[in-house]
């Protein structure tokens, strides 16, 4: 049963990890977009893709954090016990 306790403690939410990486990218790209010189914007056919991409990523990251907040991971106690039984069977 000790292993079961450990597993619950070890359950981390991948949504938060994804949101963190995308948010960092969003910040970096948005800053690059704001300080971009016109030459770089011309390269991307006139779209300031760093700026718009960065903003879109920040929005995405915020939505993911919101999802993780609204539907947190629950590990039901009786299910964990059931799983332990099933592992013993094998």
């Amino acid at each position, binding site marked *: 049963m000790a292993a079961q306790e450990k597993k619950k403690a070890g359950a981390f939410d991948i949504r938060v990890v994804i949101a963190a*990486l995308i948010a960092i990218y969003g910040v970096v790209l948005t800053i690059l977009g704001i300080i*971009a010189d016109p030459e770089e914007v011309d390269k991307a056919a006139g779209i300031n893709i760093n700026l718009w991409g960065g903003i879109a990523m920040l929005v995405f990251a915020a939505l993911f954090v919101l999802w993780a907040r609204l539907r947190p991971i629950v590990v039901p106690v009786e299910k964990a016990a059931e799983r332990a039984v099933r592992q013993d069977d094998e």
Partner: protein
Amino acid sequence: MLALDSILRLDAKAIDYIIIALYFTFVLGIGYLAKRAVSNSLDFFLSGRSLPAWVTGLAFISANLGAIEIMGMSANGAQYGMPTVHYFWIGAIPAMLFLGVVMMPFYYGSKVRSVPEFMLRRFGKPAHLVNAISFALAQVLIAGVNLFLLATIVNVLLGWPIWLSVIIAAVIVLSYITLGGLSAAIYNEVLQFFVIVAALLPLTIVGLHKVGGWQGLVDKITADPKGGSTQLHAWPGTELSGFHNSFLSVIGLIFGLGFVLSFGYWTTNFVEVQRALASKNMSAARRTPIIGSFPKMFVPFIVIIPGMIAAVAVPDLQKYKQTGGGSVDYNDALLLLMRDLLPNGMLGLAITGLLASFMAGMAANLSSFNTVVTYDLIERYLIKDRDDAFYLRTGRWLTVGGTIVAIGTAAIASGYSNLMDYLQQLFSFFNAPLFATFILGMFWKRMTAAAGWIGLVSGTATAIVVFVLSENGVIDLPGQGASFVGAGAAFVVDILLSVVVSLVTKPKTDEELKGLVYSLTPKEDRSEAAQEGDHGWYRKPTLLAGISLALVVVLNVVFG
């Protein structure tokens, strides 16, 4: 392509390297976090069967979204245009839905830990050995292909030597899989999926803007002498299939690609099925491939469309398409577009997306390789009845061994110019006969153990004969036609021989086949009792599958 001063060298700056480094920090961090959840071999090999369906669903398609898919499909897009979507809409979705609706109850319900183990319970040891060994072999070969592609890309884009890129990539994959096992691989696949979308979606948008929007792309391809309107419609795809007759081409695509090749790949390939086996209950396992089918049907828009754009917007590639000469080829389509369109920052993200995809492909190969070798070969035949810690350790060491072998097979892969053809051949060797044996075995209780392995071996032999004949020019089909024919022949030979052998050998008893054959499995064992978190109409596997199928039909009509 390997020149140190390549025409494809990207102008990566410090900021791009920072973006790449950030990603790998996260990848290793996930490996470390996942390690805390590994306490026994089931945790390591099947994530303790505990993951939610959306995670396994995204991992399901990410495991396949490797180097071959991204580079190969954008190359096909540049060469053939819209017909390439068949690899997704005909060649993947129906099989994924079939896996979720029909086959998953047997895989998950019988509590097997691998696809070969199902083989063992249904057909006994000979079929099991054939399946386990051929699968392990294929995975190491494909891992080598992924590793080689990764190294060449790093070499071309950033100028690092091939051997250095091979070793660095191998060490990174190795560290997170040996630490966190399948959970680390799956979580990284989910992260990878979002990074790839974040990399390719902006590229597609900028590209489309560059050629004047969708209408601009249509006009340019219509005006292209090597393009024309056939490259703007998915059907009948004669260039892709290699059949000149439209009717034969449609038949070839539906049966060759859509039925034999794709069902063989998606429903029996343990790399894919393993992701579903890691989910938390029967309902989530069935939903895994079905949820995966939704993003899968939209992947062509960020992979094939950039390829098509590159063929009309990048002068180097335009020249190659018209004359067949020059210093680039179709495989470079995506890289050329990145080079020409993306500013620093977004460029770094695009490179990250490509690296992520190559690395995850290899990780998926290795994480299924170590499971099959540990459970199906070592525990079953070589070193039986040891404690669980022993097999957990074995799995970790096998990952190391597999990686070293993959570095060797990377050299084999370098000998083939068209990687897509090479892999299609491998799939038709191993997967088409496997699917024939599975589907017959699941629905015909009379099928015997002897028929299981004889069918498999003869089917694989047939595929190899067709391969040799087409290599020697006896069968002359350009495009993917030879693969379709090889897979089709392997399927038919397997079924015929299995039926004949079954009729003259002794079947297993009904009691032994309970849970393994459709007619002998009670309905409640085949369907899921809804558990907490499974309620709601949108969580019903068959309804979700129906919606997915309807969407694919609509896409085929719109882009047909």
